[in-house]
């Protein structure tokens, strides 16, 4: 029952930044390690949450898994098959199984197609179906995602945010996906609609035995829906473990900073001076900062409290993802 559906080994995605027309003369190529040595696995019927600030590589992981962008190195194993180097034609049967709910549905749904055509296209692109079958399948899908039938003749811009989200979900289910990358499925939704979408995703998981990679920066939602959570910082996973453990007993300083920054928690505990001394250091890759040692060190409260030990910034001793407990891994020299 609990088979591993997706396994990722040492996945890397590096973007080269060419400095324009005369970059060849500069001699130096800038490489942005958007995803750097990421490994994890997801079991059937399991949800893995992926959190982190903007620009840490969450969405890049999702896109690489779907082979929307090629991985630089590493392995992606889906259901026992290595799909990393498959050609587009070879990958086609897997496309049905791995799907993505896109973040920006205004961009992901064709504004000139009616909802029915959008769903129909998803169905017919992978299999030949008669019109009657298509109608039957579409009404099944609508029922699954609680969408009114009258909306089929509408254009995407006539739907509300929650409805668009549901069309996005229905489209991934249309082809019979087993594994869904949900990229920020609840961002830009109201709390009331967010609750509906979250409940829907969980219902579908139970009914259809789906697995999710749930990418979000809303920590509470992630904690609620996920079985396990991976925290990312600048392309690396810094902590991974069971959702409750990550949220309530974080071991990596970054996770602690992240969770303590929840607005309501903060007002409750009235922490004015959160452990984040370097306000200017954003979680975005920066060429001016050398990429050595622990990447979080410049912002790390522990690093500053311990009087900047060299072990943190020395490239030879950059921290590795270590098992500190059953199913709990941390990338830190001084776990909390």
């Amino acid at each position, binding site marked *: 029952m609990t088979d591993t559906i997706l396994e990722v080994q040492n996945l890397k995605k590096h973007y080269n930044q060419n400095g324009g027309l005369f970059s060849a003369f500069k001699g130096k190529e800038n490489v942005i390690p958007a995803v750097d040595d990421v490994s994890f696995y997801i079991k059937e019927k399991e949800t893995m949450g992926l959190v982190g600030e903007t620009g840490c590589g969450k969405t890049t992981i999702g896109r690489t898994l779907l082979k929307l962008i090629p991985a630089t190195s590493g392995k992606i194993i889906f259901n026992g098959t290595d799909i990393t180097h498959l050609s587009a034609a070879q990958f086609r049967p897997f496309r049905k199984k791995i799907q993505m709910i896109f973040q920006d549905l205004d961009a992901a749904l064709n504004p000139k197609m009616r909802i029915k055509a959008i769903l129909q296209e998803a169905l017919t692109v992978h299999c030949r179906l008669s019109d009657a079958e298509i109608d039957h399948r579409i009404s099944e899908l609508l029922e699954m995602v609680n969408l009114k039938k009258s909306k089929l003749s509408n254009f995407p811009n006539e739907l509300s945010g929650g409805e668009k989200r549901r069309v996005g979900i229905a489209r991934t289910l249309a082809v019979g996906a087993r594994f869904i990358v949900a990229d920020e499925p609840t961002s830009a939704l109201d709390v009331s609609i967010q609750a509906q979408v979250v409940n829907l995703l969980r219902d579908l998981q139970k009914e259809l035995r789906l697995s999710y990679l749930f990418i979000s920066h809303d920590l509470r*939602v992630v904690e609620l829906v996920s079985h396990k959570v991976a925290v990312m910082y600048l392309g690396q996973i810094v902590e991974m473990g069971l959702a409750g453990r990550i949220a309530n007993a974080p071991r990596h300083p970054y996770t602690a900073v992240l969770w303590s920054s929840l*607005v309501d928690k903060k007002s409750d505990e009235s922490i004015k001076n959160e452990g984040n001394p370097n306000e200017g250091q954003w979680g975005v890759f920066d060429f001016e900062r050398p990429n050595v040692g622990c990447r979080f060190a410049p912002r790390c409260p522990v690093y500053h409290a311990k009087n900047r030990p060299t072990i943190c910034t020395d490239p030879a001793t950059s921290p590795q993802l270590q098992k500190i407990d059953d199913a709990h891994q941390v990338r830190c020299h001084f776990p909390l």
Partner: protein
Amino acid sequence: MIGVPVLKIENLRTYFYSSSKQAFSRAVDGVNLALEKGETLGIVGESGSGKSVTALSVMGLVTAEPGVITGNIGLKTDGVQKNLLQDIEDYVKITNENGRTVEVSKDNPGWQRHIDRVLRGVRGKEISMIFQNPKLSMNPFSSVGKQIKEAIMLNTSINNAQEARERTLYWLEQVKIDSPRLRYDNNPYGLSGGMCQRAMIAMALSSEPSVLIADEPTTGLDATIQSKIVSLLEELKSSVGVTTLLISHDIDVIKTLSDRVSVMYGGRVLESGPSKEILSAAHNDKHPYTAALLASIPTARQIKAKSYLQAIKGDVLDTINLPSGCLFYARCHQVTEQIKMQCKHQEPELREISSNHNVRCWRFFNA
């Protein structure tokens, strides 16, 4: 703080015409709000409830037809009282049938010219606004500092470029942008989302407005940056003491920042009162909609138990076909047999249930 409110919105109506449906979308339908000096008034509600349109109407930025059709927006600054919707009746002709608006004819170009005249010296100067998307609201071809300097030279008494530059740096410092001198020359795309939002806040505050309208200042930012922007706004509230109209669908943000809250739904205010009373789960006397909104936020207990969230059934109100009774009736789960008929057919008024706490619900009037 008793006195004449700085900003008073009365019976504001902003409609849009949908040509495909041949009907009006009543985006804002009779909103009353009052903002007193130094306080922060939060407006909460789902998307499509008319929060942003209310703000845009105040600023005279609604360009779609027919736009603002009735209302009174009183702005009182330095003892001068001004109605921002002055002479609106001259431009709008409303035809009513059975108490419902069926036709509106508005001389829109004439109204635009008129409102530009009325709002000259108000827009940006007396009332300034922080927009939802900082990167889209700033000019991508001009540096952040230049844009703020421009605002200062336009809207304040400073007209010396050097002085304005110093003032810009002062405001950039106030919003805690690190090394303001460096950031002065950055273009908006060179800044991260959080920093861009800070620059936007600096620009809005630089003209030292009487009223600041913050439209979703934290949506689209990461949790860590969001909490920093919130604490920045909190600090500015005490140090600068600006009167703020804060619009957000994030209840936590509203709870932290605002003194009073108005809950909007379908273009109307359903509830207004002190934020402590309305947004605390412990307080029971509140509108069913507010209660449902609060219940749909994941709580610590729900997360622990991995239980289901209490979603509000149904979707956001369709503002084209407004129901005849209570707007929230179709989604309300607190309707009792006793008041059912009233809820369905008659819209309740906004009435006071305790001091300064108004609710638009039949449940509170029948006792």
